[in-house]
């Protein structure tokens, strides 16, 4: 697992001051740390598209940056929020999406189909994405945030089991 204090400090140092989303067990430990963090305000959303709306409004309030947390099931909920809001108005958002439906989820058939199509969905939405891994997470986040800032568009990090929570 990535050191979560270092991870949150990294985001805070890169001017992310708000976070929102819908939880996944893959983010359990991250969310425990995030809710205690004084520098990043976490807003619990009821739906993933609502979280995209909150992040978009936050950016339109003087260019402030936020990141979102959601399961890949949530990718199915944010299609319109991405294409007719965040991407259309060119709003940068950092998305952390849990990659459910891979081998550790063999007993969870509810994730299997979205697991198979997750990368295709991101490609179809034209959202650049990277796999977040413990070994080189800073380098990957640097790449993703540079891309987000340069394009002023949402980018995505796919997060497998054990990377941001035990």
């Amino acid at each position, binding site marked *: 697992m990535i050191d979560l204090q270092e991870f949150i400090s990294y985001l805070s140092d890169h001017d992310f001051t*708000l976070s929102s989303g819908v939880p996944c067990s893959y983010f359990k430990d991250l969310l425990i740390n995030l809710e205690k963090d004084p520098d990043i*305000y976490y*807003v*619990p*959303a*009821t*739906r993933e*598209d*609502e*979280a*995209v*709306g*909150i*992040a*978009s*409004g*936050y*950016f*339109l*309030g*003087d*260019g*402030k940056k*936020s990141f979102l947390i959601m399961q890949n099931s949530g990718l199915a909920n944010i299609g*319109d*929020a991405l*294409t*007719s*809001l965040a991407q*259309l*108005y*060119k*709003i940068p958002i950092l998305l952390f999406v849990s990659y459910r439906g891979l081998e550790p989820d063999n007993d969870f058939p509810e994730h299997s189909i979205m697991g198979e199509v997750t990368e295709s969905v991101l490609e179809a939405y034209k959202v650049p994405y990277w796999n977040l891994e413990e070994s080189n997470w800073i380098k990957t986040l640097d790449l993703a945030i540079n891309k987000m800032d340069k394009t002023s568009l949402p980018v995505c990090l796919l997060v497998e089991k054990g990377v941001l929570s035990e």
Partner: protein
Amino acid sequence: MKGAEVISKLNNVLSGEELIVSSNGNVSRQAFHLLPQPQLYLRGSMGLPVPVGLGLAIALPGKDIIVLTGDGNFLMGLSSMATVAFLKPLNLKIIILDNELYSTTGGQETVSSNMGYLELVLGMGVQNINSIDSIEKEDVIEKILSDTIKDPGLQVLHIKVEEDTINLENIPWHPVEIKERFLKQLDI
């Protein structure tokens, strides 16, 4: 009264310091043509004016944020009202223009006519909710709008309105231009 007439009344009571988020379709077009420019006109993302307003309200606690939304749009993003009620941003004012129709798409019926907005929003935990009929309250509607945007704390105003008969022209700005103009005015 028609929705556009209520928006014109709102124009009379604005201080000019407020930031307004309008829901996609007719409401955004009316906001564009009837209120000071620029505002944050949503072109798509039906159901999201309330969360966009919430994000703005969190980012800019010193500014009053007004969300103008139709009933169909509000109902699509209804759970966002619960999020707002939970957080209670002091600078957020939500005005629901309820004509019980999807007007922009040709006047198809929404499920709004059946609902008690006062009880619904109160039940979510918002104390400052007012629900009025624009015909009954025509004489005092400007005062009610003024109170909604000027009274302290989170405010929600639900207004029954008549269907608009005139369709205003589309917003000529591309969404990126809407964003840039909106951000630029914040720098001044």
